């Protein structure tokens, strides 16, 4: 249950409990949202209080900068994080992101947030050791504020509108920076058309990440083969997008090979594959009377029974190489990278990148 309206409490220490009672928490203690804190948050953004940052068309709900600021306070954000929070909400409202689907689906996706540009060091977004884990206020609270907006403004509450079968811990927060200095190529946001001195957020509807361990490969093909194998595992195999975050150790090996960003994506696309027959045997193809043969975007087929010719049909993860996005992040030591599959058993939604503006 969620209670609406401002609330008054006599004891400041009871304020946190009162926020729990009102249904405003994700389960962790929140910072009581007082007017001075909300005002300070709003003052660091570029938006008027009533400006809409995110519109959810399925139910006609609009999240204003004011409501975003209240939830950023709840989450524990410092005011200088607010431009990032607002930009992430704007990205989530992009029509191609299909917000209503991913926040209500049984798939249980998190909104993964990757940050590029100068803002990372200006506000302390972490991109080295344990970048996906705990320990860093900006990472912890920026991602958390998005989840609290979803909960408090869009009723994305487990069992109500959030029908995630299991969900995952990234739904508390999943926010990190790219280690641009360790990237063999231009930073991720520059590869998407932004300037190096611009700051951006990129949002992705992400399943939980898969650790990709490889300590010993002496060739780039051997190294990337481990990634392709991980990406071809049935559990997450789909026609959707992929995000690979290379550890700096893996990035150094790729850099030494001289391979370009597009070469790496193409290699992963060509090798993260299963036969159509495998797909059918693995229960990954659903029957549809509405298609002729096989629909490679939705993985439905008129005939889900394995036929001899199906053994020779190659099915890729994604439908083209640029469905596979590449970033770099993590500690300098260790051959541990990550693969994040996109939400949805089908085509899913693209990654959306939005510039972060400051006053």
């Amino acid at each position: 249950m969620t209670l609406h309206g401002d609330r008054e409490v006599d004891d400041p220490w009871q304020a946190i409990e009162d926020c729990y009672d009102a249904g405003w928490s994700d389960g962790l203690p929140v910072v009581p949202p007082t007017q001075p804190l909300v005002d300070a948050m709003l003052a660091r953004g570029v938006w008027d209080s009533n400006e809409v940052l995110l519109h959810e068309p399925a139910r006609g709900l609009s999240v204003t900068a004011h409501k975003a600021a209240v939830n950023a306070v709840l989450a524990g954000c410092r005011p200088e994080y607010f431009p990032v929070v607002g930009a992430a909400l704007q990205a989530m409202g992009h029509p191609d992101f299909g917000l209503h689907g991913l926040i209500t689906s049984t798939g249980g996706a998190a909104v993964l947030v990757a940050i590029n540009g100068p803002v990372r060091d200006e506000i302390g977004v972490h991109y080295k050791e344990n970048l996906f884990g705990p320990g860093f206020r900006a990472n912890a609270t920026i991602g958390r504020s998005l989840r609290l907006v979803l909960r408090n403004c869009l009723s994305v509450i487990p069992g109500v509108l959030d029908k995630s079968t299991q969900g995952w811990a990234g739904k508390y927060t999943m926010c990190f920076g790219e280690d641009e200095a360790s990237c063999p190529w231009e930073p991720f946001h520059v590869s998407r058309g932004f300037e190096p001195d611009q700051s951006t957020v990129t949002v992705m509807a992400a399943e939980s990440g898969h650790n990709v361990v490889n300590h010993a490969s002496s060739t780039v093909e051997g190294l990337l083969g481990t990634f392709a194998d991980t990406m071809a595992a049935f559990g997450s195999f789909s026609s959707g997008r992929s995000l690979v975050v290379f550890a700096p150790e893996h990035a150094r090996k790729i850099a030494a090979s001289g391979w370009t960003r597009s070469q790496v994506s193409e290699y992963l696309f060509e090798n993260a594959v299963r036969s159509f027959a495998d797909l059918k045997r693995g229960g990954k193809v659903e029957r549809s009377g509405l298609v002729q043969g096989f629909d490679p975007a939705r993985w439905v087929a008129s005939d889900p029974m394995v036929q001899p010719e199906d053994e020779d049909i190659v099915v890729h993860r994604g439908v083209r190489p640029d469905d596979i996005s590449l970033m770099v992040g993590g500690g300098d030591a260790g051959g541990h990278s990550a693969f994040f599959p996109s939400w949805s058993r089908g085509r899913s939604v693209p990654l959306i990148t939005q510039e972060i503006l400051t006053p």
Partner: protein
Amino acid sequence: MTVTLIDPTLGPAKGGKSLAPRPTSLDGAVIGLINNGKTNGREILQRVAHNLGATHKIADVILLTKANPSAPATAEELDSLAQGSSVIIAAIGD
């Protein structure tokens, strides 16, 4: 000392939607069906239409299948369905 906590929530959408007038009879009605595109969604809806046809004089049945289960139907699709149908039934198959 009293602390005022600022409301972080949104209520339901304002100026929103209301239910269409309920039909008094389905005799002569054109039934529009919105299939979300997931497995068995079409089968569920067609069975509903079939059962309605057993007890009412249904004139016709129109089926719209969304190309992407996770995306809304387009405005053109919805307009077309609304203009051609007396009653519309939506369902989620999964």
